[in-house]
């Protein structure tokens, strides 16, 4: 049978963010009225994507430029010869920070990156720093500075700068980073055994049999194609 792709270990509460997180995401302090406040567009996910790509590009170009020796005396203020090595840890740091994709503003299922569920708890632990997008935007703008001193890293650094910019826009719209699943939060032990209206993935059968009487009732139209588990249980 076809396998479900997601790990089954942690259960997810899909769709509804609990109220505590709604408050954490700030009240209605919109600093900019360009877009209507009720818009569902969340720039945070786009900025996350940009920073992810920028980190990969920065990593690649930093490795490239670290192997160059002749260009060390060129470039802005000749500082490139030392600063270029700094780009590698910066790229890895940004990659680590950006890897877990946060929840969407309006709720709904978020497609998680591969193995994201092991990194997100660390982010949740530091949620003071990772939750706020203002901090992220300022940090990324500062971190994109060393990349401007060598040629190949210039474009990648500019991409990081642009992601910082979009995080700033996202912060203005009161977005924040929320773990896509709350299984690692302090609420995990309080999770009820029978969640109400739990949405099951289409290929996963429900675990309990449905509440049906034995199939002795005469009013049964359309019964010639027996395919459901129900009929199997009652044979």
């Amino acid at each position, binding site marked *: *049978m*076809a*396998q479900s*792709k997601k790990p089954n270990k942690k259960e997810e509460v899909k769709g509804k963010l609990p109220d505590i997180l709604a408050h954490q995401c700030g009240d209605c302090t919109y600093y900019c009225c360009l877009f209507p406040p009720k*818009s*569902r*567009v*969340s*720039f945070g*996910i*786009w900025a996350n*994507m*940009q920073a992810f*790509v920028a980190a990969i590009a920065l990593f*690649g*170009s930093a490795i*490239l430029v670290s192997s*160059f020796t*002749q*260009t060390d005396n*060129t*470039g802005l203020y000749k500082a490139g010869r030392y600063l270029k090595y700094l780009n590698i840890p910066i790229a890895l740091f940004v990659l680590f920070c950006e890897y877990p994709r946060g929840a*969407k503003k309006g709720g*709904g299922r*978020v*497609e998680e990156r*591969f193995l994201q569920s092991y990194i997100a708890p660390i982010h949740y632990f530091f949620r003071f720093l990772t939750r706020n997008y203002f901090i992220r935007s300022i940090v990324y703008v500062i971190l994109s500075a060393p990349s401007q001193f060598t*040629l*190949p890293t*210039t*474009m990648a650094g*500019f*991409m990081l700068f*642009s992601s910082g910019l979009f995080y700033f826009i996202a912060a203005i719209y009161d977005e924040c980073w929320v773990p896509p699943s709350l299984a690692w939060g302090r609420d995990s032990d309080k999770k009820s055994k*029978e969640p*109400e*209206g739990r*949405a*099951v993935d*289409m*290929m*996963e*059968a*429900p675990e309990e049999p*449905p*509440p*049906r*009487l034995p199939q002795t*009732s005469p*009013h*049964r*139209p*359309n019964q*010639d*194609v*027996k*395919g*459901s*588990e*129900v009929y199997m249980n009652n044979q």
Partner: protein
Amino acid sequence: MWLFDRFVLFRAFSLRGFLNDLPRYIFVTLWMLTNIGLFIGFFVQFETFPRYFYFRMISRQGLSFARAPAAVINFNSMLILLPVCRNLISIIRGTCFRCSRSLRKALDKNISYHKLFAWTIIFCSVIHTAAHYYNYEFIITDAASPQRFEQVPSNPLRNNPLIYLRLLENRSLVLPLDAVLLNYMTYAGITGHIMWLILFLMATSSVEVIRKSFFEIFWYTHHLFIFYFIALGIHQFQMILPFQSNVDVSDPFNCSRLPVDTTGEGCEILPTFTAARPSSYKWFVIPLAIYLVERLIRFIKSLIPVQIVHVEEHPSRTLEIRMKRRFFRQDVGQYVFVNIPSISFLEWHPFTLTSCPEDNPEFSVHIRIVGDWTEALLKKVRQKGSNVRSTIITIDGPFGTASEDVFDYEIAMLVGAGIGVTPFASILKSIYHKRKNMNLKKLSQIYFFWVCPQPQSFEWFATLLKTIEKSLQDEGCPDLIKYEIYLTRGWTAAEARNIYLHEDDIEDPITRLGAKTNYGRPKWDEIFATIAENHSKKKVGVFFCGPPILSKELHFQANKHSTNNCSFSYNKENF
């Protein structure tokens, strides 16, 4: 991960399925071979041709690694505009009515081709840019240390390798080989960076997460492609790539090794250089013109007035809009693009048509309220009330290959999962009308399986099923369409009690249909086995619309249960 998907697909392989998709595989293979051919061809050209010899001495492999992906980028930039011309594709599909159906279905996957070309452009841009960064390194090396040319002691080119670059004729600028200058102050440098930025913004906003959830970001960012093409055209206009123009009189392989005042060896004439002319624009000018024609067609079609006949709001935030338009002929299972200028002037959203061709001239779409645009539409409908018919709406379409294959089989198995059930509204209505007009050809029995997590959002479809069920009963063939509904979601305690209490009712308590709702995932093995038993010596067509994982499962089951007696042919529909 997609690797697992490929493995599952391998299990579901069938010759018929492969032949069905053959045009697509052929096209992608040809395209891949062309890319590889272009890459290798241009690489070899720039590595071995004598006219690039002197420049190669500076840039070593950087030149070839930069120009080879550039050719691939040019080729893909040319192709990328074509799959997006949906009106022209419809025209091709329409005029090609003698072509086999699989050829016409290959045109349905146009957006996936578009994505393929786009990712190739990005991949090759990375190689191109990295090669140019290597070029900067090499150029500065050679400008700083002419020792590389030691092998020719009295060659005047030895002491200053820049001389022969200063022998450029006429048009192009004479540039000192400063890397920063080349990067920021040339047309190529500036436009290259602009293109990188545009590709970056377009690629990051085109991933599925953003496309599905925040469509506006994707849509408006994607219109930067205009600037991409302008930048690509300007990219080579400064003509700073020099090549030797008198290779026939001064063979570089020979003459670069000899001192300059050697006589009798055929090297008396010094090499002269000219600049490479821009060639990128030649690749994409024609497709750009085709795309402009396409936009013109769209604009002209949008001027045809569309009358809204009826707007109805269904439970669970679904809107039904029935419309009429001249020059609109619909087939089963097609889709249209809808644009409402008063909500958003530039946005066109695709919706599957839920009416059937027999409804002509009316057609309808059912719109689920999931995003900004649809929310605005709902608000407008609620505000305007009966005046909503005065809203200006424009339709582009219909697009898509018609799913007429349903009528070619004696038995049809239709499986709709989740949102994929929408095109089946059109198909079921068409079947009903065709039966009434005695037009049903071979089709004698239809099994319809509706798999959804919850019936909310599709009450309109349940109502439609109920209407069809009742009409068929009234007309005396209640068994034409046998349908089963599977709710794969769990249930709350209240629902469980409700189901228990209404166990013996004729109508199902959840869907209000005659057929009882089944809970859980359908057991496809048994379903296929039962159908194979009941219909021996017949061919059964399986049609599916929904998430791909279920598609692979059905494909596998169809192959497994196909015997000489009863064969299942799985048709993957592109709704």
